[in-house]
């Protein structure tokens, strides 16, 4: 039994954005366990008002530097839904491929550069450059490939240039795609090695039952658009996302919080996997089972493993998709866009969970109202409750301050939060 504990992490590192962890235990009683978000808000939802539709994807991509592709695609989808534009098969494939590579890039960044140092007991990936150069080189190799494919399809790995409402400004050269396919095949091996690496880590054993929200696949593991679903049995259409997110304000955070059937819910790789396990590529499913990860898993630290599983999934699926693209004859990259009044919602599964963009347009295609719900803001409440539970549990077990601090940090990192994005 532990009597006192004082954890105060100011500006948690190796996450995107600014957040603090505070845990205080007094006389064996949990006084406080808080996840505070102090990031400065940027007010995208306000300053988009009055802008024409074509500004939205270009500006909204800038909500986040890590998942700018996801934001851009969600924004484009919202505009297209508002205007009644249905993307062509070719556009859908290319977008998904682009999306997959962002997922891969982001997951690998998180697994190797942000999460792995905790397991290896170092403060950052930098010491590993010396002590485990092959590991770092492997991470760099996978990330480089993912980024190269993003360049090739989206024009730019960050804040993409080719993605526009109606399609693409230009298409990748098929010869490039061929090269990328070969590299993707190679990378599959590297992912297997990544799995071996993570198998050597001790994933903290912590459970707290919660609700998981994600898109629901319709035959495929879902990434862009479709129905919304929760492990507690809620199912809604994309348009009704607000009934899924129920945002509200709390005093400890500049980011909004969300809830659904319970006091909090989780989104992200683990949520997607819990809801769509059956749609995973068989290789990915195999990896998942090898970690004992099967739905519904309630250990938030397993989100790391879910990310690994998804990495395998997207690579496997991308190889197949490139084959299909190579077999097809490329048609016009871009459809003509006619603006009209209306509301459009775009739901996209970005690396950290489900992301919604929603715009209301007047008849000249100017934005009247804009709403973006970011995965990390949906996770904040869940992080808060996890943290409380964890502090209470570990206090009971009488763990050392340092351990609690580390586990608390690892817990927050496991969500791979993108705080600046949650306070957009």
């Amino acid at each position, binding site marked *: 039994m532990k009597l006192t504990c004082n954890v105060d992490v100011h500006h948690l590192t*190796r996450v995107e954005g600014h957040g603090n962890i505070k845990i205080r235990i007094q006389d064996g009683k949990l006084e406080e366990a808080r996840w505070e978000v102090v990031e400065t808000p940027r007010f995208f939802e306000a300053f988009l*008002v009055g802008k024409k539709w074509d500004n939205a994807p270009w500006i909204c991509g800038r909500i986040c530097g890590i998942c700018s592709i996801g934001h851009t695609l969600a924004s484009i989808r919202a505009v297209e839904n508002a205007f009644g534009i249905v993307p062509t098969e070719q556009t859908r494939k290319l977008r998904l491929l682009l999306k997959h590579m962002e997922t891969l890039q982001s997951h690998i960044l998180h697994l190797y550069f942000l999460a792995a140092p905790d397991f290896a007991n170092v*403060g950052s990936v930098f010491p590993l450059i010396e002590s485990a150069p092959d590991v770092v080189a492997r991470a760099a190799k996978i990330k480089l490939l993912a980024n190269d494919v993003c360049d090739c399809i989206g024009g730019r790995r960050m804040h993409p240039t080719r993605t526009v409402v109606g399609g693409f400004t230009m298409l990748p050269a098929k010869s490039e795609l061929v090269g990328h396919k070969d590299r993707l095949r190679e990378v599959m091996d590297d992912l297997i090695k990544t799995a071996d690496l993570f198998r050597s880590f001790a994933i903290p054993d912590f459970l707290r039952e919660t609700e998981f929200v994600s898109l629901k696949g319709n035959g495929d593991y879902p990434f862009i658009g479709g129905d919304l679903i929760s492990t507690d049995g809620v199912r809604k259409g994309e348009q009704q996302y607000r009934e899924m997110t129920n945002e509200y304000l709390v005093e400890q955070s500049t980011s909004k919080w969300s809830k659904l059937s319970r006091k909090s819910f989780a989104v992200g790789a683990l949520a997607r996997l819990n809801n769509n396990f059956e749609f995973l590529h068989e290789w990915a499913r195999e990896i998942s089972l090898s970690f004992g990860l099967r739905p519904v898993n309630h250990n938030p630290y397993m989100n790391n493993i879910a990310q690994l599983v998804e990495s395998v999934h997207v690579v496997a699926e991308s190889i197949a998709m490139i084959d299909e693209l190579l077999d097809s004859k490329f048609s016009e990259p871009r459809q003509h866009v006619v603006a009209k009044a209306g509301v459009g919602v775009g739901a996209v599964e970005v690396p950290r969970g489900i992301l919604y963009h929603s715009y209301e347009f007047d008849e000249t295609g100017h934005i009247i109202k804009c709403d973006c719900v970011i995965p990390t803001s949906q996770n904040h409440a869940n992080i808060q409750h996890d943290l409380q539970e964890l502090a209470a549990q570990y206090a009971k077990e009488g763990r050392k301050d340092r351990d609690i601090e580390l586990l608390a940090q690892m817990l927050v990192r496991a969500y791979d939060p993108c705080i600046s994005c949650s306070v957009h």
Partner: protein
Amino acid sequence: MAETTARPKNFLGVPVAKPKVAFIELSSCEGCQLQIVNNEATLLDFLSLVQVVNFREAMTEKSDDYDIAFVEGSVTRKDEAEKLRTVRNNARVLVALGSCACFGGVNQLKNRFDLDWVKREVYGNSFIDTDKAQPLEDFVHVDLRIYGCPIKKEEVEKIVTNLVIGREVHHPRYPVCMECKANENICLYDLGEPCLGPITRAGCDSWCPNNRAGCWGCRGPADDANMVQMRKIMTEQGFSDETLIDRLECFGGFKACVDNIRKGQLK
């Protein structure tokens, strides 16, 4: 941070110190910092050139003893202005990293509105603290700017190499069209699309036009940019002032020009 690959300790016999660098962010998408880690192919060389002592996004250790501070993001709250002043005091060289730091970036789009309205639009009646979004130079002296949204890694590498060996850093003074032609792109205007290439400072290697997307001026104006003519061209090519302003004001680099158009002074 550990020493990495061996590196010559001098250039042309001039000793080269390994400067301590810090990456610090204010209000931003953190993309510019990420661009630096996005250099998989050259990351190791880059890390052998400098000693990273502060990089919240990537490492836990932090130190206030640094030579060069790369500050990303714009200032949107008093505590950020304070933080910036502290960084200025600690750093020998303060580098504004990216459009947000150089011009306010997309964040400054909110300055178009009354701040109270902005707060209410997003947070309703709850209290939220925010000020206008401003570039670093409104608060402290900036030694060097790295333009772009996002920054271009090749350019950062070049600038950092020059900083490290102590060679002067110069930005191209001509507009993006110059690079666009060198890349043999089809001019966006021939395709019927607007582009700010003729007035925007080059250095991005015409990133957007290379991808058949018109330039939005994220790097701010070229030296002596001919705004009046740019507006004439846009009009002649059938684009409205709104389209022009959308682009000019997107990243904050052309603020003076936008004000002039709104005031009817740019003809």
